[in-house]
């Protein structure tokens, strides 16, 4: 007997169609999602804040608007989760840190405003690695999140909570942020779609900054089309973000069905070999064969500089973070420790409020910028970025997109890597180069391994190349026929 699909299992496209045909209401949709959350949160802990009241009001308003003929677009009435490093006015925003426990922002992030304007229903704020620093969501000060495919394993990070909500069905879509792979890697580990768009296309106003020149907000969703619709809803020029792109934005939907015939696909040589699980490499090979079969010209491409990209990332990101996190000092908001002088107060507040990973990176970043070391570390890392950008540029003269596994491994067990920072950092090896150069990337689930753990396939494109990227991703999705789902027991609260 086929299981009746619950509303929370629908994609955004499917739910949107039913809302418009009057089959369902936004309130019903939300109720299904909230119900699902109640039954899964004890096991997966996707959310830090479930905003039942706010979501209800938004769902009711969405129904009213729709009935009155005011159709706000593809996200109208759709329950969306937002990573807790994006400011939501009146709703606690913690960046999963003790230092912001109880902090309620007086303003909305730009993307949150865009969601409201689009009639979306914000379900709540999802868990993350503290200040987005991590690859497993184990660095959250409020407890980790767990992978719906196997709750003894991590969902990846830092947007682990958002990925889990989508994978578990306690949101139809979510927003995350990606600084070194923090959307794509958890998407890969939880079997969903995750997109990091071109740097500058989604406003960072209201995103609690980790590394300013690397951070980008993007969608996590169940399908490539859902991701495209979500991205289109939140991207665009924002005058409150000076790094916001003000030119023409790519069309994401037009080429989704165009297939890959005649497209040149470059396989990044360096993203294979030692450290890559067999299942991951096999899934890669299978998909490449299918792409070739569908008319793509598949070639090997070498980007030798990616070998030191992660090293550059671990200088640039902490350096910028050390300055971005300097504002957390107990003076104007957040946690404040005791102190007889402001100097003592600040130092104690920060020591008490930051977890070990954050402390590590702030120290690292401060060091990399300090007198005498600046040029050898931070300065040199910037040069690596420039070289990498040149290398990608040369590659794109020969291919239309680049591809790789999203992550060298499937979801690892909770606790496996927490004591070994370097091994944790290496999980971002395939994703971080795109942040360094500002190019877009998407992870599409393609297969599961023998343990029913998902494998993700990454498609990369040049800056503002989202059209061809989504086009290839849609074909990958079709060719993969990924139909597995996590077996997650519902546990009554």
């Amino acid at each position, binding site marked *: 007997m086929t299981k009746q699909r619950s509303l929370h299992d629908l994609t955004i496209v499917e739910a949107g169609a039913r809302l418009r045909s009057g089959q369902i209401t936004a309130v019903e949709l939300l109720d299904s999602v909230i119900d699902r959350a109640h039954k899964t949160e004890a096991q997966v802990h996707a959310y830090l804040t479930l905003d039942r009241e706010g979501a209800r009001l938004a769902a009711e308003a969405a129904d009213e608007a729709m009935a009155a003929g005011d159709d706000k677009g593809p996200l109208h009435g759709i329950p969306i989760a937002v990573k807790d490093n994006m400011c939501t006015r009146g709703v606690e925003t913690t960046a999963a840190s003790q230092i912001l426990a109880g902090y309620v922002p007086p303003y909305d992030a730009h993307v949150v405003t865009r969601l409201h304007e689009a009639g979306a229903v914000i379900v709540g704020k999802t868990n993350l690695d503290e200040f987005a620093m991590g690859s497993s969501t184990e660095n959250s000060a409020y407890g980790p999140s767990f992978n719906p495919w196997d709750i003894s394993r991590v969902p990846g990070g830092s947007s682990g909570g958002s990925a889990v909500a989508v994978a578990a069905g306690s949101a139809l879509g979510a927003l995350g942020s990606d600084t070194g792979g923090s959307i794509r890697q958890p998407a890969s580990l939880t079997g969903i779609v995750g997109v990091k768009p071109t740097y500058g296309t989604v406003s960072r106003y209201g995103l609690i900054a980790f590394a300013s020149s690397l951070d980008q907000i993007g969608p996590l969703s169940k399908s490539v089309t859902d991701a495209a619709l979500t991205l289109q809803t939140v991207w665009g020029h924002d005058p409150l973000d000076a790094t916001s792109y003000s030119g023409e934005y790519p069309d994401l939907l037009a080429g989704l069905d165009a297939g890959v015939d005649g497209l040149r696909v470059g396989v990044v040589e360096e993203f294979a070999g030692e450290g890559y699980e067999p299942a991951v490499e096999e899934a890669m090979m299978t998909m490449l064969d299918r792409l070739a079969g569908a008319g793509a010209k598949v070639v090997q491409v070498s980007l030798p500089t990616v070998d030191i990209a992660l090293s550059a990332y671990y200088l640039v990101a902490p*350096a910028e973070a050390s*300055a971005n996190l300097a504002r957390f000092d107990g003076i104007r908001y957040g946690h404040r420790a005791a102190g007889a002088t402001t100097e003592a107060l600040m130092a104690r507040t920060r020591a008490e409020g930051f977890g070990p990973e954050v402390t590590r990176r702030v120290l690292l970043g401060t060091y990399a910028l300090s007198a005498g070391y600046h040029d050898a570390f931070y300065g040199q890392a910037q040069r690596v970025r420039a070289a990498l950008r040149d290398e990608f540029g040369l590659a794109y003269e020969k291919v239309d997109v680049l591809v790789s596994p999203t992550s060298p491994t499937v979801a690892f067990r909770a606790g496996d890597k927490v004591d070994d920072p370097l091994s944790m950092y290496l999980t971002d090896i395939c994703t971080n180069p795109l942040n360094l150069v500002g190019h877009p990337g998407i992870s599409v689930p393609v297969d599961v391994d023998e343990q029913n753990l998902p494998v993700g396939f990454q498609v990369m494109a040049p800056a503002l190349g989202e059209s061809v990227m989504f086009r290839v991703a849609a074909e990958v999705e079709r060719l993969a026929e990924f139909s597995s789902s996590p077996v997650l027991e519902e546990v009554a609260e």
Partner: protein
Amino acid sequence: MRAWEPVIGIEVHVELMTNSKMFCGCAVSFGDEPNTNVCPVCLGLPGALPVPNRKALDWILAIGLALNCEISERSVFHRKNYFYPDLPKNYQISQFDVPVCREGHLDVVVDSETRRIGIERAHMEEDTGKSIHVGVGGRIHAAESTLLDFNRSGVPLVEIVSHPDIRSAAEARVYAQELRALVAELGVSDARLEEGSIRFDANVSVRPEGQVEYGTKVEIKNMNSFRSLERAIAYEIDRQIEVLESGGNLVQETRHWDEEAAVTHSMRTKEGSSDYRYFTEPDLVPMYMDPSWVETVRSGLPELPAARRARYVETGLDVDQAGVLSDAPAALRAVYDKAVIAGAPAKSAVNWLTGEVTAWMRRTGTDPEAISLTGPQLAELVVLVDEGTISASAAKEVLEGVLSGEGDPRQVAESRDLVQISDTSALNSAVEEALAANPDAVANYRAGETKVVGFLVGQVMRATQGKADPKVVNELLTAKLDG
């Protein structure tokens, strides 16, 4: 006794009076209730981002051009990282190695001599909030606390750094005043030292005359008036010389000027010098100040003090007079310009304006813009005196009449019966009478006491109710006495 040469550089911070702050839309306004002009950006809330104010950039360009600087075609912002409670992000957005303006100069006049002070750079940054230190009563151990107001946080600030070209405390004061006048003239800042919208720090060192290497540099802060600037620097120069002459060593440090005690105090030295860990601001993009932008700003510049002084010198004033006139209100300067065009001799015109006219304005509480004296009228007044129609003392009265709206100088002189009698035929009888009435004086004159003419002139003046032209009277008397 060895001769010492003071070497002084001045750092100026100028608050720009734009409508809104440097990186956000909060109002730039003073005296408002604390923390009422704040937003996520200038409060350093999580997630906030800066966006530069274009007008502030127009204005730093204006300052740089007025200071004869080279404009960097491309410049960037940097983060200057340090922790302080009034600095919300615990970094200041500033500029490090690519400031907007570089290598300019300001000419100042000190003791009638023009000195060129080099400007190393002018860059754009943001101001901090304000801290107020208070004692809190009612607690068991009445500890002090600090109160923070972020209304000022994010106000656009231009930092102007001179080369160490200044050689005396007096010169430093003139430089500071000149710079202040310049930014006020440009209309970019209130530039009020007492209010803090312009702030000066000095770097002072001394070296034996003739030595090329610089001595130990000491930074002086907390000079809140031009007078205290001069006093503080003078004090510091003397202090340094005294230390060195007694065989001691100077410490490179920051010292605080204590106006009451009239000394500089050492401030607590921090461990080592600050490591600001500058890096390019990743939340902002580079600025490209293309030639057409710069030209637009340049063509909009008003006449600046130095150019104005030069122009006045060309009209016939000496350097000091040109300086005095340059500092006079615009309305008076406009009268001067028109008076000179109407033919008035430059020096007379300036003397009248900065002397009697200004005194009259003060006495009557009249604003310069409201005076009714035109350039041609002033020219006419001068002519009347020069041609002897009115005496110099009568001229003051005539001026008053003109200023009171009674009409042109000639009209006023006539209606107030101040026209001198200079016609010799008219004066002859009075002269004859005076001579006749004072035979002793005549005799004394002829005996060699020529000075007695003055007495006789006085007699004629009395007889003519002061209306006789004393020069003509003198000539007539002398002629008759000699003849």
